[in-house]
């Protein structure tokens, strides 16, 4: 929870005030971590990408002009960090998540307050193949448009739509079991 005016915090952080940036971190870390966690389906990776996103935000604060909300700007940095690392990782090995993936189960258990249906959905989302999961999280959870997803992930708009529909089919099947 932030106790100061966000605009003032951003301006102070832009001037190099690390305590102001820490306040921004505390105000936004939950959303950034949730995004990274759902995109990666892995607690360790989510923590690392969250850290990367905030470090990148600190480095690029001077470029933030306030045209968009700070949170949107920060989330976009986080998504970029997730995909930057995943592109490098996928070049080395294709990682496949299954419903038995321990990271995914740990992730779902991270939220003691999550109601049963939401937790089932979280587990099912975590078990999706990476491409389908990423598009589903960005489109249906975070509200990005296919054009934006295509720009962020480097896939065609048609591919983004195909991955979304595939994700929904797999999720319906998983939730109906």
């Amino acid at each position, binding site marked *: 929870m932030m106790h100061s005016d966000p605009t003032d915090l951003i301006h102070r952080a832009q001037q190099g005030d690390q305590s102001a940036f820490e306040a921004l971190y505390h105000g936004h870390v939950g959303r950034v971590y949730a995004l990274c966690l759902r995109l990666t389906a892995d607690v360790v990776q989510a923590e690392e990408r969250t850290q990367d996103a905030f*470090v990148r935000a600190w480095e690029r604060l001077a470029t933030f002009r306030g045209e968009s909300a700070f949170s949107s700007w920060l989330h976009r940095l986080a998504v970029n960090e997730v995909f930057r690392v995943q592109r490098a990782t996928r070049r080395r090995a294709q990682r496949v998540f299954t419903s038995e993936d321990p990271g995914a189960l740990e992730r779902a258990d991270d939220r003691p307050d999550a109601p049963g249906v*939401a937790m089932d959905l979280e587990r099912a989302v975590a078990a999706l193949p990476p491409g389908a999961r990423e598009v589903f999280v960005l489109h249906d959870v975070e509200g990005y448009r296919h054009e934006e997803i295509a720009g962020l992930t480097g896939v065609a708009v048609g591919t983004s739509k195909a991955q979304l*529909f595939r994700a929904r089919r797999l999720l319906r099947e998983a939730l109906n079991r």
Partner: protein
Amino acid sequence: MMCPEMEVRLNEYVDGTLAARERAAVEAHLAECAGCRAAIVELRALVTAAATLPKSIPPKRDLWGDIARRLGKRERGNGKRVWRERAFWRRALAAAAVLVIALGIYRLLPPITAHYRPAGQGWVAVQADFDRASGELGRALALERHRLRPETVALLERNLEIIDAAIAESRAALARDPANAELRGLFAAAYRHKVELLRWAAHAATS
């Protein structure tokens, strides 16, 4: 069970991205197909559930310590370079402003006072000097202006507009009456204000 060939259109129907004609065709199909009607209900429930998942999940451990350590390392690593860049800009801007003011004053002196004045250089050359200097200062400021508060930038731009209007007026008057010493003084004063303002702003942005 959903008709397999309807998957794309049912998803687009749920997303609201179908054109009116296609939407009507899907609705006609839904009126006759119980499997697709059931699929639509599931799809809508899924999309609603996804959109209402908690947006914030606190990490299990505080990540700030690791982030602060990484920021600290980067600050120390970049510190000298940043300081050197800022020091360079400060020196360059100060030198440019001093040079242009000195040249302007020299060239505006009456012929009897000036020890040497190259042929063809009068107030036109002064304008060129000021134009060049204010251009250089403006470009330097453009690189660093993001360091200034938005309200400072707005005030700076308003002041520059006023000064530019004064410069344009005195320039036009001088074009009509090039020998008028008072107009030359007015022109030089307006331009000195501009250079001083730009120099101050660039200094503030790089301090």
